[in-house]
């Protein structure tokens, strides 16, 4: 069996010779292709990013890799969708507990072009992300992909799961209707039932002993700045470890046997 080896970096092509006089002129497509290639070359010559891209994209994957292996990417795309729609929702949203928050959500849903659609993507997308992250976790668990040497990646994944939950919790308050308000009251009080630290934790979340003027903006800042930043960094680390360690074969695949048979045939 040949030793596993990443594909060698392509040898840089020699500079094309200048065209002979009288050669046919380039078509616009050829010109555009050449321009694109030289632009990429220009960046690559200064950053050497192509090596990293090749390392990330052209990996060996085990035999038996199947659709279950797409759940992680699906979760990441759900996160990206949340990030993009969230950025644009922030253009219209006002974290004002005295009525401005509810009014701005009403404005987004009823007045803004495609507002209800973008808000809906963000709202339903959060549930989609939670479902996907659990399916991804189940895949990892049932395929035994959390075992050595991938324990650290499992740990990062658990942190991402908790942060996703925190996103759901802090985002739920932002529409600031009756449901948001009372769900957050209940949620903060559940936090408060932790012995010893609970009371201080709930004071921290509310910015005081009562749900007050800065509670909403505090939730908003946590929801749109603090947690997404941490999540983006952790997703980067998660992906790095996936590329570094490779993916596991599905557990029903016997080691070596089928490979040898195929090689003989």
């Amino acid at each position, binding site marked *: 069996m040949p030793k596993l080896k990443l594909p060698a970096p392509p040898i840089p092509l020699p500079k094309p010779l200048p065209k002979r006089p009288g050669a046919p002129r380039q078509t616009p497509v050829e010109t555009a292709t050449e321009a694109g290639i030289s632009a990429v070359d220009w960046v690559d010559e200064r950053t050497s990013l192509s090596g990293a891209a090749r390392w990330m994209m052209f990996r060996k994957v085990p035999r038996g890799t199947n659709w279950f292996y797409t759940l992680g990417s699906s979760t990441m795309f759900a996160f990206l969708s949340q990030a993009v729609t969230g950025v644009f929702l922030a253009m219209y949203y006002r974290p004002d507990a005295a009525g401005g928050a509810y009014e701005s959500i009403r404005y987004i849903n009823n007045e803004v072009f495609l507002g209800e659609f973008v808000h809906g993507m963000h709202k339903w997308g959060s549930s989609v992300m939670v479902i996907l992250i659990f399916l991804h976790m189940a895949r990892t668990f049932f395929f035994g992909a959390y075992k050595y040497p991938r324990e650290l990646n499992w740990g990062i994944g658990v942190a991402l799961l908790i942060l996703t939950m925190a996103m759901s919790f802090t985002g739920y308050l932002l529409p600031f209707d009756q449901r948001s308000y009372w769900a957050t009251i209940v949620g903060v009080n559940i936090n408060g039932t932790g*012995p010893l630290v*609970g*009371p201080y934790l709930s*004071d921290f979340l509310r910015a*005081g*002993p*009562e749900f*007050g003027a800065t509670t909403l903006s505090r939730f908003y800042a946590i929801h749109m700045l603090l947690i997404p930043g941490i999540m983006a960094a952790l997703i980067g680390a998660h992906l790095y470890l996936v590329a570094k360690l490779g993916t596991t074969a599905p557990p029903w695949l016997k080691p070596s046997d089928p490979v040898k048979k195929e090689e003989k045939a």
Partner: protein
Amino acid sequence: MPDRHQTKSKYTTDRRIPGAFEGETVSRRRFMTASAHTAGGVAAMAFVLPSLAFAMGPIFEEQDQPWQDVGSTDEFDTETYVPKTITIASGVGEAGKSTVYMRKYDPQVDVEPKDQYNDFIALSTRCMHLGCPIRFVPAAGRFICPCHGGVYNFRGEVDGGPPVRPLDRFYTRVTSGGRVEVGRRFSVNSEIERFSPRDPGAPLDGIGQYLYPSRPSIRKLPNT
């Protein structure tokens, strides 16, 4: 081949500081590295610590609840509860308002000793399970929570369901003009003893009062 830098100094050999002169405990390179790291650490702490304190400040800052007029003394009797609206958080409009249930102190019903702060009983509508708004049902003479089915009797003690302690109360006082004022919140245990306010879900009987300590942000009146 012997190391020509080897000296007899106990510092350079034992602590393996390459290039240090005899008697030096730290090389110049190491000193510079440590200084640069320290400077970086100080610079980072200079913005991290104030920011953290800024975010955590409300935990340590006491928020006072001013006395609020809720009506004249003849609006309340011992038979039933009258709902009154007070402001528990300023600056947020309707979201900062809360209902209190008011009645007159009744020696036949109330078990706690009479003092200057309970001529009138003011019960908070905050359910002591997880904080939903409870409602007084006159036909049953009980308070009922819509969320998870908590039930309290006429004195605000738990009759059933998940709540862990009787309803919170507010201090009340009567002004010289015959007006009733509602002051700050306090929590009670099952003997209706006053405690600094706790969040819903925090029991106050037995070990509960220590597992869920009072917070600097909200206190009962001293010596009450």
